[in-house]
């Protein structure tokens, strides 16, 4: 296989990491919404935790994206 083609395929495969980030963000917001509907009074206090969890989950997916960008532009 040509190295250039392998690079592009590798970058594409690395982007699969974003699926995990999608699952994580969905779980966080879904569970927050479910909890907030059950007990709306307790919901605002947990909003910072929601944002923190969102950012942490999103970041793991972006690690995969960084690998893809390194494959594309650095190597």
């Amino acid at each position, binding site marked *: 296989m040509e190295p250039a083609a392998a690079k592009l395929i590798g970058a594409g495969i690395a982007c699969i990491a974003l699926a995990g980030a999608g699952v994580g963000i969905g779980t966080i917001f879904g569970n927050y919404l479910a909890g907030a509907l059950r007990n709306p009074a307790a919901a605002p206090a947990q909003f910072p935790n929601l*944002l*923190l969890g969102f*950012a*942490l989950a*999103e*970041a793991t997916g*972006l*690690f995969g994206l960084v690998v*893809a960008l390194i494959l*594309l532009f650095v190597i």
Partner: protein
Amino acid sequence: MAAEEAASGAAHHGGGLAIDPMHQFRIETIFPIHIGGVDASFTNSALWMIIAAGLITLLTVVGMGKRSLVPGRLQSVAELSYEFVANMLRDNVGDAGKRFFPLVFTIFMFVLFTNMLGMVPYSFTVTSHIIVTFALASFIFLGVTFVGFAVHGWHYFGLIVPKGVPAVMLPLLVVIELISYLTRPISLSVRLFANMMAGHTMLKVFAGFVIAMGWYGGFLPLAFMVAFTGLEILVAFLQAYVFAILTCIYLNDALHMH
């Protein structure tokens, strides 16, 4: 991938003008300084760091200059940012964290302002370079570790020994905890850097689509761009918040150890 598609698409339609979404991250020397073979030139990165620091100083010094009982607009913003960081520190670290307020406030405001200044068109996003975020994160890591050893002495090594675990599992868990402790600066810096770089690259890739799709089709990616810009402003704030709150959590670990 998407980036090259945009570039080749632009080249195909526009003829010659290739759009490089990575061009925005290029470091340009404004005036060269060489000290003993070390390149310490004043770059656009340094310029935007100075602008951010200047704006923060302006906000806090001018904002709190009058100290009126009923705050004006600028004073409200200065007080709000103070309250925000003070509450974050109180919730996560407790009263022992009050000494570290200047550190956390500086880190939060610097990351927030550099992120937000990066959203201004034709500006430079300082935090989209891993060396900047890694320097910040390793400074935090070393400082927090130093605080931990200063407060607890050799007992600080107890942080990597989880409590209430069967002794058989301990050798494995200690290694895992040690690795997770040592990778803190990497995860902290890569999180901020990756979010900023990915967001800005995505915006420029879609900007390439606008040009590539021409006068009629270009409005669709343009609408996406407007939405993404809103999302990016949210992310810029969120990442500064996460950076500061993780600093608080690490400080809490160092001061109270579980």
